[in-house]
């Protein structure tokens, strides 16, 4: 199926990204003029929302910072309520290169996957990061692979493409704190088809990533707890939806 026939949107969560968000929007639209863009400003204190509007994006402005999961889910809800059929998710800091989008979109457009995740580690091209982070990333990948009974390499990638089925699930229920890992497990548990696609990502141009060394330990502990408890949950979507 061609992407042009589908109502499609890019969801970009952004927290204080006034310097990056304009370029991200321009690049996405240059890649595909028919692609709508919604910027979810996650309680930004700078001009993120205004810049996004000036660049012609839809803007959802959260009244305070919800964290990445809450922000991304807001985008999913926006897309779901407005009847979009194809969703790409990418970060607002310019790390995700729109020229890589066709790779991420391909499995979803071909109907081979409900959700496709751009992985920095699936291909041969190296991705530089600190030793502790690499260990953590590998460990998470091993655990998620075991749970999913399918090899995954990059459990923290926010560069994803989703079809309407996956969108409906994530609009209804999406993990809050560090959603990509749990999201992968949820996807599998709901019997949606997940696949990974090798991509290259860029270094950030402005500002710093929100994950620091100390936080990554806290992150690992929380994610491992969430994964472990998740195994004992009968229905992944809480009844009534919270």
């Amino acid at each position, binding site marked *: 199926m061609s992407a042009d026939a589908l109502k499609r949107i890019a969801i970009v969560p952004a927290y204080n990204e006034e310097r990056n968000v304009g370029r991200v929007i321009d690049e996405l639209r240059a890649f595909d003029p028919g692609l709508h863009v919604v910027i979810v400003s996650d309680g930004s204190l700078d001009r993120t929302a205004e810049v996004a509007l000036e660049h012609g994006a839809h803007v*959802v402005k959260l009244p305070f910072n919800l964290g990445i999961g809450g922000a991304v*889910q807001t985008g999913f809800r926006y897309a779901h309520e407005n009847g979009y059929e194809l969703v790409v998710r990418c970060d607002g800091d310019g790390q995700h290169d729109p020229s890589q989008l066709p790779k991420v979109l391909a499995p979803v457009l071909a109907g081979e996957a409900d959700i496709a995740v751009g992985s920095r580690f699936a291909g041969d091209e190296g991705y530089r990061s600190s030793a502790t982070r690499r260990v953590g990333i590998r460990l998470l990948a091993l655990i998620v692979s075991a749970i999913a009974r399918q090899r995954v390499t990059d459990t923290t990638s926010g560069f994803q493409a989703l079809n309407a089925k996956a969108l409906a699930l994530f609009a209804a229920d999406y993990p809050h704190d560090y959603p990509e890992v749990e999201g992968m497990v949820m996807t599998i548990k709901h019997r949606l088809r997940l696949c990974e696609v090798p991509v290259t990502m860029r270094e950030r141009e402005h500002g710093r990533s929100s994950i620091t060394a100390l936080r990554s330990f806290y992150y690992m502990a929380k994610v491992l707890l969430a994964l472990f408890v998740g195994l004992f949950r009968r229905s992944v979507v809480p009844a009534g939806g919270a």
Partner: protein
Amino acid sequence: MILAAQTPLKVSLAATAASLVLVLVVFELIRSRRLRERYALLWLLTGIVLVILSAWRGGLNTIAAWLGVRGYPPAVLFAVGLLFVILVLLHYSTVISRLSDQNVVLAQRLALLETRLSERER
């Protein structure tokens, strides 16, 4: 046979008075609608259990003997009090978790409605 340890009368009186004050304060908070019944139940239960154990010295002595507390039966009061405090705190953690989940949903709804409104006006 070794005689089981007894609760000193003064300790019993002081503990009874303190637990009664707790029960009365909780009751007053409910009466003046500053504490909802659903959150007050655990507190009331705590107060009532402590009142009974404090005032009923024979009972406290017997329970202490069952539990193997030889030296000082009022230690059981501490243990029971601590147990209830932990329960109340745990209960609050669940309440806070639910409130923050609801808060997220509200923030998302508000933001989506604002967007819908402003896109309609434009």
